[in-house]
């Protein structure tokens, strides 16, 4: 395997690890699938639909998100937002993330 392929693979794994946290954080505000994807992409996290949509469904099933179907611009859209459980989970996971980031920064120095 080439050097670039290694880093590409590791980048994918890293992104997969932080994806849930990014989605939870972004859904502090209400979004439907495509607007969430656009928002994440505009902040530098480009995720394909095949990964993002099933993920938000799983998070909803776990009770971390609430969802609602609404019609907007003649199109049915499913809007997602953090539930109360999601809010407290995000708070805890954000704290965990800060700790990991601090530890990694020390290691990488």
């Amino acid at each position: 395997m080439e050097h670039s392929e290694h880093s590409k693979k590791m980048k994918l794994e890293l992104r997969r690890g932080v994806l849930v946290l990014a989605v939870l954080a972004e859904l502090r505000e209400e979004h439907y699938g495509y607007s969430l994807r656009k928002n994440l992409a505009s902040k530098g996290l480009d995720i394909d639909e095949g990964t993002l949509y099933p993920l938000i469904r799983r998070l909803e099933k776990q009770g971390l998100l609430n969802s609602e179907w609404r019609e907007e611009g003649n199109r049915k859209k499913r809007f997602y937002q953090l539930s109360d459980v999601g809010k407290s989970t995000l708070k805890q996971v954000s704290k965990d993330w800060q700790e990991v980031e601090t530890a990694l920064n020390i290691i990488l120095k």
Partner: protein
Amino acid sequence: MKLIENYLDSLETYLPEEMKQDVRDELKASLMGQIDDSQEELGRELTSDEIEALLKKLGHPMQVASAYQPNQHLIGADYFPAYRKALEIALALTAIISIVLAVSSAITGRSVIGAGINIFADILHNGLYVFGLVTLVFYLMESYNADLSKIYAWSAKDLKFNSKRLGLSRLETGFELIACVLFLAWWNNMIPTPSYGWANNETAKISLSAEWQSVLWSVNIVIALSIAVGAYKFVLATWDRFSLMSEIALSIATLLIIAQIVQFDQLITLTAPLEDNEILVKLITHFDKVIYSILAIVAVVSAWDILSNARKLRA
């Protein structure tokens, strides 16, 4: 928009009924949103090639649909090591049972090649069933979240018997097993004793003397137990306390039987159309020497087994 509808129709076929409409509406909203954005940016409508490229980027409908469904594998990473071990043991057991059954039918049956093909076909046939059954059991265990701590119950004290030093080759144990089964068959007259061509188309027959009757059952028991322990070792592919102690006990029993045999007055009986008694005595002496040599080798191997297994036990 026909391309998009076709894509969503195809996607629906890979989804369970209750998810079809939801996933369709969600993806349609997303695709239409992307098309709107692109058209606004370009100031024109998207061509069918561009829409096709958009769908291609999304992925094969089957892949996209599968991402929406949980448990898209037969056996997950948590259960896989236990599954692999269970499969290994089950297939080893299947191989032993198939070989033992096939060897016994081969002894009484037709050609060696035919028996070999039958053994191979039996192992393959039964092995496939066992493979399917074990996979199904683990799939159900995972589906019902079977307790992993029970599956992986272990103790640090037991791990020493899994060290490399105590590993066993299945090939070696397999040969040992086949040799034991064949010996047991010969010992119980299931394999005919060979006759030798003699002068004037007459034959000579060598057979064990009547004194061997005194060790008939003790040898049968030792060999049958050796087959059982061998099968156990073949399945585990490692030594453990049970197999080591059993092997030591069987080696001691073998030495005791040999000690009994060497006290026999006559080891073999030679039936031959021979008038010259001197030649007959010479032949019997020759065969006695052969049997004593075999017994000496078996005794040395048994003594060595006792020592090496005792060392393994202390390890």
